[in-house]
């Protein structure tokens, strides 16, 4: 399929008479130039895409490349806002320091733990909800609207709500626990519970998203394999295990990639709910970079952490993401 080529281009004829070119008057050439410009502006010329594409591209290039290059340069410098005078190139020193920094490894551990914990539960729970929603449910339209709420509410409002929910004195959590006859807890100030508490927030906020992605996959499944399975007398579990799951694999990976991308840069909720605490128990990579820059004023060090994050994201984006997104778009 040839896009952009127009079958019977009337306007082409006026340009095609190369043979008599020398005979033509200057006026005619001027006409041609004018027509060329008109053709370009009315998108008739094959080069017109430049007109459409370059303004946006240049803007985007400027606003993305400039900060990235700056971050890269900063990361090679001993750049501290508190002592600007001593700003100089130290090359890889920041990166070497990072690899010897226990607090960096802690933040990586927190990020990985948080990402893995949330992702696994969101996938399992999301799958259950998706399967239920693909069947007959009373008031399904309303249910689907209700389920949308967590992911569209402003995340900061969500974090504020959960902070109040977890409040040890007046919060709903301890009230519900007492109804169930359980003791009281204060998840946000206990080192062992805080990560669980934060993961619960993320599960609440984003399981519906995973569920709705999986649901759209379930609804697009072909019918034939199921008919065949029915004929062969497969049990329900076997059908899910050997037909649904394999067929859903591409959609599941989309959910995983998109959730991963968000979880990896996760910070709003930390900022509002715990500020990385208690101690450094919920300090994620983003948050650690943030405090390095704005509390310790060490721009160089913070930039180096960001560059490491970017590298991780780019690697994943260019391998898994490329495979999933581009290939699906081409279908």
């Amino acid at each position, binding site marked *: 399929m040839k*896009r952009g080529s127009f079958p019977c281009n009337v306007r082409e004829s006026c340009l095609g008479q190369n043979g008599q070119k020398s005979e033509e008057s200057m006026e005619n050439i001027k006409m041609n130039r004018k027509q060329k410009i008109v053709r370009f502006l009315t998108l008739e010329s094959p080069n017109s895409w430049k007109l459409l594409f370059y303004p946006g591209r240049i803007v985007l290039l400027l606003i993305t490349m*400039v900060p990235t290059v700056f971050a890269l340069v900063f990361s090679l410098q001993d750049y501290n806002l508190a002592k600007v005078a001593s700003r100089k190139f130290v090359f890889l020193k920041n990166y070497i320091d990072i690899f010897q920094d226990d607090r960096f490894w802690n933040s990586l551990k927190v990020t990985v733990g948080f990402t893995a914990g949330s992702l696994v539960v969101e996938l399992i729970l999301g799958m259950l909800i998706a399967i239920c929603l693909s069947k007959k449910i009373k008031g399904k339209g309303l249910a689907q609207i209700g389920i949308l709420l967590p992911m569209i509410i402003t995340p900061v409002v969500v974090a504020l709500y959960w902070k109040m929910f977890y409040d040890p004195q007046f919060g709903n959590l301890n009230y519900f626990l007492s109804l169930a006859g359980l003791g009281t807890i204060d998840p946000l100030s206990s080192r062992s519970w805080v990560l669980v508490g934060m993961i619960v927030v993320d599960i609440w906020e984003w399981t519906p998203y995973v569920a709705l992605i999986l649901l759209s996959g379930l609804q697009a499944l072909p019918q034939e394999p199921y008919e065949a399975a029915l004929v062969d007398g497969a049990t329900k579990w076997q059908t899910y295990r050997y037909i649904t799951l394999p067929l859903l694999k591409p959609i599941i990976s989309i959910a995983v990639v998109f959730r991963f991308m968000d979880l990896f840069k996760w910070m709003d909720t930390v900022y509002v709910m715990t500020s990385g605490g208690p101690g450094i128990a919920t300090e994620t990579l983003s948050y650690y970079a943030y405090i390095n820059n704005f509390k310790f004023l060490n721009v160089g060090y913070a930039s180096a952490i960001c560059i490491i994050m970017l590298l991780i994201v780019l690697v994943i984006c260019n391998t898994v993401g490329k495979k999933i997104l581009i290939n699906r778009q081409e279908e």
Partner: protein
Amino acid sequence: MGMYKKEKVWSIFRNVFVWCCVIICVYPVYWLVTTALKTRVDAFAVPPKWIFTPTLENIKAVLLQGTFMKSYRNSIIISVSTTLLAMILGIPMAYALARFKMQNKKGTMMWLLSTKMAPPILIAIPYYVIFKFLGMQDTYLGLIIVYLMFNLAFTVWMSRGFIEGVPIELEDAARIDGATRLRAFWAVDIPLIKGGVAATGILCFITVWNEFLLSLILSGYHTKTAPVTITSFISFEGIRWGEIAAAGILVAMPVIILGILVRKHLISGLTMGAVK
């Protein structure tokens, strides 16, 4: 008969499970709304008061608070301008990608995608330094530029999908009738993709409206957006849950309404068009 009964039990289980999930999803909104309507004493009652006399005090207090309303206005200005700019720059780009022959389209699309995937903190730190240098701290323009970066790629990806959904034969037909390509795009494609483009715009708006980190770092006294302002409620207002809840509802209300409005495009939008 046994099969039938078993199916019935499953059906009941499914309904109960789904509706439990719905209740868990909706409960916080219910709590915020009721807490916003409670007096201070009622808000902190243990056990919680399910029945109470509603008061508009909290909402009034928030509405009368200058800083909050100003930040609300800032949020509107920044979200709307970013969305419009993303549309103006993004739709032509999408049309070029959808209909013209270009080299390395895949690479371009991937590049666009990676601008969306970059961690915001990576962008925030250099912009903080650059804006400080240029004196662009605490300006609308600064925030709009940064938000544009995260939404332009998104607009292009989404609109490209919609434009490709319009059969090229329709455009060709218009052009055989003598319309230029520009006119065909305007008169044929735009009316057909209007709904999708509007949804894309709304999704842009929601993303910008909900964004917190970049605004926290790059905005200042004059340009603070609403999500940043409400986080300061916790420290400044002590434990005035009623006002926090009222402000929270005011901030979340526009996106809840818009989100429900475009719910058909929501998942597709949040996955850059990978899920239809």
